[in-house]
């Protein structure tokens, strides 16, 4: 199936108008020895119907989480998504638009970004947010870089309780800019950052301290104290937050963070094997706001005084500032940001609290039920939100394969990150009591 409307006779007409004899002539400037003489070794083209059949077959080789009940999280969550989200993001005007460079015919996208920025600022308690980043991990990396630039310091302090993949991403970004990194260990009883150690680190050299809330283990950090420690030494405080948790937890703004970032997959975006998601990025204070990476939409008026929206502060960006830009980001994750806006708007003020509340309650329920099983225990004592680590002297990967046979995707075995006996269980509002009860019963039989 091709999507090319040009017919043979139109092709001829155009060639004639151009004044060449063949399309090949238009490629005459390519050194002939480079020209490809063989077809590319690609499979034969498929008609639409064949394509659909082929893709369905591929898709069926995956076990999808509508078929089984999942307790896996660790950065990608099975939350409920209101039906209208996809209907709206599927409208051609949103789906097939480019970055809104021509404001007068892009007010739809521009206003939707302005609303997204407003919503992100509101849930994080920050003053401003950008139009989106690739994901939470890259948003955090950019936040750390921004802290270095803003403070002119070259040390970043990261917690060991940061999501291991985020840690790798941040590390790669920072190393390539020759920024030093130091890690704060966690206390083995609580599972949260060891502030005694943090206190003794080179805080006065540090551009920032980062806290992930909840942390990778699902545990709640004492963010306030960490923030106070770095602020005392003139550095910035960055919080990487789970947006759903903000329905209940203190916002970065309330805690006094300077920059708040996070991943917005859980706000109306499907898991999709890990992407696309959306990274959000918010800050406060004019100084930081004017250094933010990525696109930003601002309100203005047209010649008749009518309210309108435009891309603004573009002098920060690569297309104007080139190598001096605050970041190289160009395309972002606009449609996922739109999904997040729709999600936040339709669940609304009460729904936002309710989502967090239900996650908390259900997670606590599963934890309580699982602790009835002999051989399982909780290694950490800190409070948790939507995830918790379970310890057990078991081969969690093996258990998971057995669970699959019963229609369950178990918690994530943390051996892949070096924690041998741990598995991380996530429970969202999408899980039901019945599912959890069944799960506990099956799990009990397997341990």
């Amino acid at each position: 199936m091709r999507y090319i409307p040009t017919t043979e006779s139109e092709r001829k007409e155009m060639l004639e108008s151009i004044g060449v004899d063949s399309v090949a002539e238009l490629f005459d400037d390519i050194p002939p020895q480079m020209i490809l003489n063989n077809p590319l070794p690609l499979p034969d083209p498929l008609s639409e119907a064949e394509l659909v059949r082929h893709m369905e077959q591929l898709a069926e080789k995956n076990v999808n989480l509508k078929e089984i009940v999942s307790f896996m999280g660790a950065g990608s969550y099975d939350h409920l998504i209101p039906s209208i989200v996809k209907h709206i993001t599927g409208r051609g005007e949103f789906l097939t638009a480019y970055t809104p460079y021509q404001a007068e015919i892009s007010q739809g996208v521009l206003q939707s970004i302005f609303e997204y920025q407003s919503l992100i600022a509101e849930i994080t308690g920050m003053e401003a947010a950008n139009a989106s980043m690739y994901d939470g991990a890259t948003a955090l990396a950019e936040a750390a870089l921004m802290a270095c630039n803003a403070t002119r310091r070259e040390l970043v302090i990261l917690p060991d309780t940061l999501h291991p993949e985020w840690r790798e991403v941040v590390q790669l970004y920072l190393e390539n800019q020759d920024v030093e990194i130091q890690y704060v260990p966690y206390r083995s009883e609580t599972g949260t950052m060891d502030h005694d150690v943090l206190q003794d680190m080179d805080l006065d050299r540090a551009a920032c301290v980062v806290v992930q809330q909840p942390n990778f283990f699902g545990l709640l950090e004492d963010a306030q104290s960490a923030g106070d420690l770095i602020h005392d030494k003139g550095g910035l405080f960055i919080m990487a937050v789970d947006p759903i948790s903000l329905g209940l937890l203190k916002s970065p703004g309330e805690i006094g963070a300077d920059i708040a970032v996070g991943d917005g997959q859980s706000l109306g975006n499907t898991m999709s094997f890990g992407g696309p998601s959306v990274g959000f990025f918010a800050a406060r204070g004019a100084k930081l706001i004017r250094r933010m990476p990525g696109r930003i939409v601002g309100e203005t008026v047209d010649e008749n005084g009518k309210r309108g929206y435009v891309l603004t502060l573009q002098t920060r960006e690569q297309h104007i500032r080139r190598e001096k830009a605050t970041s190289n980001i160009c395309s972002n994750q606009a449609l996922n940001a739109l999904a997040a806006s729709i999600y936040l708007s339709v669940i609304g003020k009460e729904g936002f609290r309710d989502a967090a509340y239900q996650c908390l309650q259900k997670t606590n329920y599963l934890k309580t039920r699982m602790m009835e099983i002999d051989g399982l225990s909780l290694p950490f004592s800190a409070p948790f939100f939507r995830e918790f680590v379970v310890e057990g002297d078991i081969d969690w990967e093996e258990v998971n394969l057995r669970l699959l046979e019963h229609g369950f995707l178990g918690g994530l075995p943390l051996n892949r990150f070096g924690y041998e006996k741990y598995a991380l269980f996530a429970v969202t509002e999408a899980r039901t009591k019945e599912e959890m009860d069944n799960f506990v019963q099956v799990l009990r039989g397997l341990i």
Partner: protein
Amino acid sequence: MIKKTGVPLLLEMSSPGRRGYRFPELDVPPVSVEELIPQEYLRESPAELPEVSEVEVVRHYTQLSRLNHGVDVGFYPLGSCTMKYNPRVNEDVAALPGFTAIHPYQPEETVQGALELMYNLGNYLADISGLHAATLQPAAGAHGELTGLMLIRAYHEANGEGHRNEIIIPDSAHGTNPASSAMVGYKVVEVPSDERGGVDVEALKGLVGPNTAGLMLTNPNTLGLFDENICTIAELVHDAGGLLYYDGANANAILGIVRPGDMGFDIVHYNLHKTFSTPHGGGGPGAGPVVVTEELASFLPWPIVEEREGVYSLVKPEHSIGRVKSFYGNFSVLVKAYAYIRSHGSEGLREVSETAVLHANYLMRNLQDVYFLPYNRACKHEFVLSGKWQKEHGVRTLDIAKRLLDYGVHAPTIYFPLNVEEAIMIEPTETETKETLDEFIAAMRQIAEEAESNPGNLRTAPHFTPVGRLDEARAARHLILTWKK
């Protein structure tokens, strides 16, 4: 409509207690929140999200969408962006639960379809580029650049040449090229263009040297011109010990016709949201896979997909630089690009490029008498005009662009590349009809005529859009970035 205010913000529509979507009732015995979370960790005041009904949300976004242009609405000749038709069936297949409702950490046994797709897509891209191995992790073109430059750095460091700290970039290059270089700590060395629009080879000779880490190039370049000296350029850079990076944003011109690998490039990124027709979503998500030579393959970000006896698994290349993003990339975008390639096959992709180039030349030749054409040679998938003739009448390229909006057409890219005065960069793509091209020619000619006869009308354009020309200076001066009560 009579309303002068435009569409209100959803936050302005709130009514206390109004609810849209509701979650199912909690079905587990509740515990007091304070018992689970210390009071001092809890939010003091609830986030002031909108309190609106479902119909309000639907209407709000329906109305907003109707203020917006898109490929689905009309012609979108935005140069450098390849705004081609996005086949709707690709949305269907990407939305299959087998692709959307899978968790990135599921046991590999349960995601063989996803891995197979990624494995094959990587190979297709390698075949299309004439290179060896791919990472699908980068989320966009600029992210691909960043990844590629990190690979260059890692490669030189592994070879004990960590001192190489310069990236050479033409003056016509896209802003992300220098910006990405800076993000990897490289010094940007600009090479000027010659009078044919290509890299000035003589100047280049003076720039390459022991500090050269690499050169970034698009070919066809941002002028839409194929750099005929590419062999010499590649040789110069390679001889100096540098690597060649191909910015694949312009790949729509050369699919199945010439491969970057055959031109001498070591690293390529593709913008799947351009060349491979995944929709741009108002700014993203895209995907910027990076393809490299065999030599560089071991440095790729991890994980990548490996196949053994029909079983696919995620592995780490030996010298992997690490991760540039969590998980494996913008998977749904990859699905659409895969579907696009499978729909076209080799012949189809070649026809894509041939037609894109035909269309661009057709437009160029039918506009060059009314707009100044700085480089008068066959273009590839796009071309750059200059509004300098119109400037003499006091009409800027911006005015021309704004007037085009009145014709129901998106404006071309303007003021880029920087090395053309009053640049107008036009990319029609292969999916437009001749009628649309002819209408565009007519509109551009009318505007040129109007620039002479009634320049004032251009300076105040657009006249038929939902809002008039917006005050950008004011937006930057009085920053209003979020809704305030």
